[in-house]
């Protein structure tokens, strides 16, 4: 039982990551691919934050009467990663807008057919 209490968080996070990953590699629509990518990344962020948690600790901001803080380093890393993620999303979405204008579709198999036709 304690084994499950110790690990349930990791396992659910793994499940979420794989859901996102599945959307990325299986979706045919490019917008959905980007949504999947974001879900994948957000779930990875959860993995990092999970490992920074200390049971009974508080947020790492100095407060009187508190001795146990959660680990601030994963928080810093994930702050960085979130911003990196939104940067990638923005570039990906603007590529989609251009693809729509150039091909008239954002379904992967359709513009692949068009490319092959040339």
């Amino acid at each position, binding site marked *: 039982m304690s084994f499950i209490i110790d690990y349930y*968080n990791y396992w659910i996070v793994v499940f979420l990551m794989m859901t996102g990953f599945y959307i990325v590699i299986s979706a045919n629509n490019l*917008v959905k691919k980007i949504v999947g990518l974001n879900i994948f990344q957000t779930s990875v962020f959860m993995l990092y934050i999970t490992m920074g948690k200390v049971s009974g600790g508080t947020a*790492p901001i100095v407060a009187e009467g508190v001795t146990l803080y*959660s680990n601030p380093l994963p928080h810093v890393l994930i*702050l960085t990663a979130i911003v990196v993620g*939104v940067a990638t999303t923005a570039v990906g979405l603007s590529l989609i807008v251009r693809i729509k204008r150039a091909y008239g579709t954002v379904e992967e198999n359709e513009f692949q057919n068009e490319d092959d036709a040339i």
Partner: protein
Amino acid sequence: MAVLIDLVLLAMLAITALRVIFLKDLFAVVMLFGIYSFLSALIFVSLDAVDVAFTEASVGAGISTVLMLGTLALTGRTEKENKHSSLLPFLVVVVTGAALVYGTLDMPPFGHPDNPVHEHVAPRYIEQSPKEVGLPNMVTSVLASYRGFDTLGETVVVFAAAIGVMSLLGIRRRSEDETPESGLKEHQVLRVVAKLLIPFVVLFALYVQFHGDFGPGGGFQAGVIAAAAFILYALVYGLPLAFQVIGPKFLQLLAPFGVLLYASVGLYSMFKGGLFLDYNTLASDPVAGQHYGIIIIELGVGITVFAVMLSIFYAFASQAERSNVQ
């Protein structure tokens, strides 16, 4: 109790993520992603990562969702039925997931204070940073000082995204006479309320910017919130008016300026005989130097993030207006 809240949130996340797989309505998919992002922000709060939660809520749920909706307006909102088999992706995912679960088996137990993560590097941040850097918010200390180079890199990533979006979409200012009716002219209530709220939003952004040393917040969140205020303005009053308030050309100068402001702190510390980004050299008292350094670089981050987020929004919105005209 905390475990229960965690479990409920995680279950809701799982349901949201699974729903995304099967939905064909992309508008709903994007809204579900917004929900997913908010839910994960809640998880972050319950795991003590308030700064991260703040960022996730403003960046992930806010800006990303707005950009995705903007894309949908240009590309159509339903996904077509695709026929090719999803067996191979499923197998890949199962194998990857199995590898990850195998990896979790030796992971240190959740929340245990003796875990290696909490032992080697982190104690110094927790114990020394209030003395060495002088800020109560350890996340800000680590972000801006100990790992300040990461944060410079991150600001440059944001800048790189702006370069990408600008080169792909561009922001075109059309002459006044061919400007279509834009903004929400019909919504009288919305216009009044927006006018009322925008000053408060900007004020809040400034609070987040300069209070980041003491509580959750900092340049990233502040930049995004300030950008949100102008995005609201542009949505309600239309792009041409927003361009008169803050023009795209000005933003194009502001974005590199923030990065340069950040880097110039590093160069100045080199000039004063320290290493790159060594804030101790900025003033005679090292702690005061740290404080100056962090305030300036957070400002640089805020300026760049604000300018980039707003110009990315401008780029998407001007595309949408153009396609409306055609």
